[in-house]
């Protein structure tokens, strides 16, 4: 076994009122992939931020190749050979791809002036190395999400760092893209670098990682080689109790048609989307990232204007021009972009939960606080939101807990149809099970559910039926029991049709 390239000893980090990390130690070896696991809010991202000089630890020591280091800024971390892909997308839409890669460490030539041609050449080389021929002078805003992700990876590689940290890099990716990413990870490993990999998806962890470090509420509760543990053991370590890993599928009697969608189209993003959705049914919507699922469902929800199409709910034709219309009719949509579209970060949990259904809490002319509190408590407990109090600002919660509050907000509207767009993106396993269970329960109560997920096991585990979208159109439909993962992925990528 080689010497650790980076060690953390007794690291603690406190925020006002929160102990995010407590006496955590870990060691990273070159040429190995260490998985960092833990529930939402366990402190994973906090470790990343300490290692990259964004937070300074309250206590503890960082050593790189045996040398004690303190990082005041990401520059110090880069200098020490540490680079990261952060959980939040942190990019500059208005700047070029090359600048996005080299921001903060642009190559300079004579007179310390930026050497653009060298920067472009280097960027092109880096992108080529990860099989992404994106022109380096393109403005980032012209790229697709997947391409942006590649740029972020190129940025992490640009430092030629010995330690590469990836905080939930796969949360927004689907199968093929994850394969590509793992090729890159394998390459890094082969080059003798240490990789830290954070994910809530255990199949990925077991596929790619060598070691694991498990956190729970800021404490390190376990570490070691992954070959020594089983998945249930890991989960138990993480959550502190056993959780059934298999996504449970409730047997729900499926009723009459709730929602009927015909020929939903807009100009450039999706066309001719038609389907029927029955009461109690969970309809999975699968596709590669960028297949237009989000757009189609946002069109249905009244966010983007339609050019064509009709929507009928329980036999009544609807005219949906805005989200307010949709909510009023009984359709809810849990958006995929939590930070921007879902959460109101500077308001409290209570205010977020009741936001989409304020009418319900109006007594006379005014809002009733007790009524709001009841609702918040009920939904918050049901979804196991972890917070200090129900008035806490959403921005102070971990990503996963924010997502739970956003889901609670939509459940509070008592919808007839709920569209869940990547509802468990970035949610830990215990909470995920709670969300799944809740989805099942809602279906049991006769709610019709549309579930968009890029996680195939999740869709296959929960859905009664799966529609597959590709390039803005529905290309295939699968019934429960008559599907296989290969067939679904094949439909999503277009390989199936060609092969046939």
């Amino acid at each position: 076994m080689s010497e650790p390239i980076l060690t953390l000893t007794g690291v603690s980090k406190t925020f006002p009122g929160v102990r995010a990390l407590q006496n955590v130690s870990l060691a990273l070896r070159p040429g190995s992939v260490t998985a960092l696991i833990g529930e939402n809010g366990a402190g994973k991202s906090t470790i990343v931020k300490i290692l990259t000089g964004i937070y300074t630890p309250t206590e503890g020591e960082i050593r790189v190749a045996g040398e004690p280091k303190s990082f005041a800024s990401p520059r110090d971390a880069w200098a020490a050979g540490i680079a990261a892909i952060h959980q939040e997308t942190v990019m500059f839409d208005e700047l070029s791809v090359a600048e996005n890669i080299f921001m903060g460490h642009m190559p300079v030539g004579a007179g310390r002036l930026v050497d653009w041609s060298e920067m472009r050449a280097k960027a092109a080389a880096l992108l080529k190395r990860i099989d992404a021929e994106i022109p380096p002078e393109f403005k980032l805003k012209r790229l697709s999400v997947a391409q942006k992700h590649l740029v972020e990876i190129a940025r992490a590689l640009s430092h030629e760092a010995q330690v590469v940290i990836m905080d939930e890099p796969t949360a927004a990716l689907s199968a093929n893209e994850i394969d590509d990413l793992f090729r890159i990870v394998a390459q890094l490993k082969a080059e003798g670098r240490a990789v830290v990999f954070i994910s809530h998806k255990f199949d990925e962890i077991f596929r790619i990682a060598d070691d694991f470090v498990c956190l729970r509420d800021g404490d390190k509760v376990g570490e070691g080689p992954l070959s020594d543990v089983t998945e249930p053991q890991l989960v138990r370590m993480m959550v502190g109790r056993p959780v059934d890993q298999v996504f449970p599928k409730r047997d729900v009697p499926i009723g009459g048609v709730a929602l009927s969608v015909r020929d939903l189209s807009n100009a450039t993003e999706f066309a001719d989307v038609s389907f029927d959705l029955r009461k109690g049914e969970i309809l999975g919507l699968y596709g590669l990232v960028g297949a237009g699922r989000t757009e189609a469902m946002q069109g249905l929800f009244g966010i983007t204007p339609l050019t064509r199409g009709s929507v009928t709910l329980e036999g009544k034709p609807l005219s949906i021009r805005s989200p307010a219309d949709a909510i009023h009719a009984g359709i809810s949509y849990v958006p995929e972009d939590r930070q921007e579209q879902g959460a109101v970060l500077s308001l409290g949990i209570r205010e977020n939960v009741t936001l989409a259904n304020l009418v319900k809490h109006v007594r006379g002319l005014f809002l009733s606080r007790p009524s709001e509190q009841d609702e918040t408590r009920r939904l918050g407990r049901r979804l196991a939101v972890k917070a200090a109090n129900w008035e806490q600002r959403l921005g102070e919660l971990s990503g996963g807990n924010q997502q739970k509050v956003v889901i609670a907000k939509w459940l509070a509207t008592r919808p007839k149809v709920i569209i869940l767009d990547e509802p468990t993106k970035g949610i830990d396993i215990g909470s995920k099970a709670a969300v799944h269970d809740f989805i099942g329960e809602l279906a049991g109560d006769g709610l019709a559910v549309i579930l968009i997920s890029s996680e195939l096991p999740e869709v296959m585990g929960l859905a009664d039926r799966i529609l597959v979208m590709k390039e803005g159109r529905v290309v295939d439909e699968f019934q429960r029991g008559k599907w296989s993962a290969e067939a679904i992925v094949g439909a999503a990528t277009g390989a199936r049709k060609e092969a046939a």
Partner: protein
Amino acid sequence: MAGRAIKTRRLIVAPPPLTPSLKGEGDSEALTPPSPLWGGVRGWGYVIAEADPASGQRRMRNVLNYRELGLALVLIVGVGVIGAYQPVFLEWRNIGDILTETSVLFMMALAQMVVILTRGIDLSVAANLALSGMLAALVSQYYPDTPLVLMILTAILSGLVLGMINGALIAFLGIPPIVMTLGTLAVYRGLIIIIAKGDQVNASEMGVTFQAFPKMALLGLTTPVWIAILVSILFWVFLNLTRAGRGLYAVGGNPVAARYCGIDQSRQELLAYSISGAVAGLCGYLWVARYGVAYSEIANGYELTVIAACVIGGVSIGGGVGTVAGTLLGALFLGIVMTALPVLQITPFWQMAISGAVILAAVVINARAEKRPDKLILPEARRLGRDTRMLRRARA
């Protein structure tokens, strides 16, 4: 984007091949799906409009983007029309006057742009200009033997200090820029009264060289124009060729991302407001020396003209977007409007209404240019590239 274009692959104008040839060649190619990670499927939609890098059009766009080209065009047509009515407007002398009159606006707008790039705003620039100008004038009045360079330096330094006060409180205490500079706007203007004891400094009280400098001409252009040219070049180099300059775009474009890239937002903000202040100081000297008077009311309300110039030039109030060329064009545009109206004998009462209308028109046009491109997911939309109007009409 500014800077020299390096050789890039000629990008395709036709519909994309189904299987980009980036992955390894092989027999299984036909079955291998185009990897969306490399973005081929989506990516092509965006690159369709790209022309051959070698073509002149492309090189032109490296200097001026579409919006700036549009603005330049409007300017040329506008000047042509004005010239048709009043040929005197096109005389070299008048053009020289326009440039001289606008030189302060050029510099102030560039400095304001630097601040707006960081998502800030500096409302105190005009007050800073007036105060710094007053200080220079007082030096000239009471110490007439001071070398001119020192008097100009006094103005620049005073501007710099005033700008740094803004910058320090904004950067290190996180006071919102609009609040901070609204406050210092009042404070700096009031300080003029206090420092000068309510008095003004007249042309006859200022030194002769002090006033003569802005009137000197070289190759038909006055010193303020030359200074503006020099300052513009410095700004261009700073914003495009230095790390700190690019850092300003980063901080304004995405502050969190900038932090993750090790860019110190506070330091960038301090830098931006210091630049803004120093330029205001320099302009303070030029203003006072040129108009031959310093008192508390000079350049009253000028901050809004400066911001308007930025806005017309395509600087986004949301931060992170703006170019030197655009801002200069915006300032020139306002400069021409301000100097053309008197020449055209448009009744003075119309002037304000016209500049208001021009600002509104500019924002509306800029906003159209800035509209986020559609996501071209549908294959037929990608084939048409950005020009999806046809498709939209067909589908409606």
